[in-house]
């Protein structure tokens, strides 16, 4: 399942993330997952929210550089090697994972894995063929 993810440009300085979450909180947007990677002077915050379209509009109105993009959300089977299997499926089919992060939904045992590849449609099809559980409802 392709889900909407917000990407927001932030500078690496204190308070930069709070400014983003402040805006989302103010507009009543619920954050489902968030990831920022180690960067030097600026970074891209990736956020999965309940109301992506509204959140994008609000962030832009507040002057943030933000955009929506599609990512794949998967619920791996709870057994050793399942992530290994996922990466192999992608790699063996010539699909490159650009970034990946995971998050736990309340009352669920397994974390979701969210990732972006260089060929989203193909990746989805392969996951479906292999019977991996792509998340439909967040």
């Amino acid at each position, binding site marked *: 399942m392709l889900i909407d993810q917000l990407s927001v*440009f932030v*500078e690496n300085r204190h308070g*930069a993330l709070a400014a983003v979450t402040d805006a989302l909180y103010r507009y009543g947007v619920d954050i489902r997952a968030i990831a920022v990677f180690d960067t030097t*002077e600026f*970074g*891209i915050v990736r956020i999965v929210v309940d109301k992506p379209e509204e959140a994008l509009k609000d962030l832009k*109105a507040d*002057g943030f*550089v*933000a955009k929506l993009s599609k990512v794949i959300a998967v619920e791996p089977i709870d057994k050793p090697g399942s992530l290994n299997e996922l990466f192999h499926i992608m790699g063996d089919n010539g699909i490159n994972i650009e970034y990946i992060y995971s998050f736990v939904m309340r009352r669920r045992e397994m974390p979701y894995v969210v990732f972006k590849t260089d060929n989203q449609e193909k990746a989805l099809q392969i996951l479906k063929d292999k019977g991996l559980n792509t998340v439909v409802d967040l």
Partner: protein
Amino acid sequence: MIWSTYETMARDQMEKLQLERLKQTVRRVYDHVPHYRAKLNELGINPEDIQSLEDLKKLPLTVKNDLRDNYPFGLFAVPQKEVVRYHASSGTTGKPTVVGYTKNDMETWTELIARIVTMAGVSAEDTAQVSFGYGLFTGAFGLHQGLERVGASVIPMSSGNTEKQIMIMQDFGTTALIGTPSYALHMAEVAKSMGIDPKKDLKLKWGLFGGEGSTEAMRRELQDAWGIFVTENYGMSELIGPGVSGECKALCGMHISEDHFIPEIIDPETLEVLPPGSVGELVITTVTKEALPLIRYRTKDITSLHYETCDCGRTTVRMAKIQGRTDDMLILGGVNVFPSQIEEVLFNTEGIGPHYQIKVFKKGYLDKIEIDVELIDDNLLESFGQLEALKQTIRSRLRTVLGIDAKIHLHEPRTLARFEGKAKRVIDMREVK
């Protein structure tokens, strides 16, 4: 439309008028300004020695420090009671430079502004919003008087309070915006954030900008942001304020009112006068001013002069856009660069906004340059690599075009300084000047 017949005078007539006025001016400063009398005596020049325009180069140059050294009124050629108006330039170091106007000077100034606003398209039909700061700075009052002279409806808005500016602009149906180009850019940004589309919601037609230099790239930026016809005008308080020159609709340089100012271009190092078309420092002699006549005043502005008749019909000489100032030229690792050249490169780069800051400092014996820019393009958020690539693009363009190596920092929108008056884009931390 051409405001004054002086603007289309034949060259020989103009030169005759200039010579006559130059002679009077030299006589006036010799008789009334001790500073000039001493200088002329030192050089063994008598006012009678000035017999042709060629003799101008025998006269001594005047620099800004001459005004500071004679603070406040030492260079005035009239007693204080003849002065009807004072203005002063923003002195960043110590005392400001004070200028004064007699009743006739005020009339001259008003006429000069009437010429440049007419050149830029403004007429009695227009509503003009003056967004220069009113006060000692000459910009606001200068434009104000001349706009009234042509019959425009003038809104003396002053600078700052930007949201109110936009509101008035919309409610009063402003058709001409007057201010610094950097403030006009900032205003466009504020209008946008207020949900106003300048092209649909406002009646603006003309933008008359001055008070600081600007590039062709900035003109395009302003034209796109506001949907207006943008012209630039030039002046400085020492010479009279704005009104020395301005662009006509042909946009091929700023017409100098030569019946009041005689321009020359000199080599700023050797001080030698250069032929027409050469790039160098602009030097101006005022030939009609009563309160503060200046002989061969060094403007520190780098430009060139072009005497061919313009498509608009005016015969007055045109000065090219200011390339930079002799005192803001940066020498970076032995390479001479004007901030305006860096600006041109930045403005022509997709993905970043029009606001920037240049920082220069020393690391060991090396000059280091860092440039802060604002990211505006959300399409670059797919991967970190795209943002890095943008930085590299800017860096390599600066290297190819200007031969300088600069570190680029990307910032969030609306985080760099905005300016309501003259922009201050360069911070040089190499040494205290």
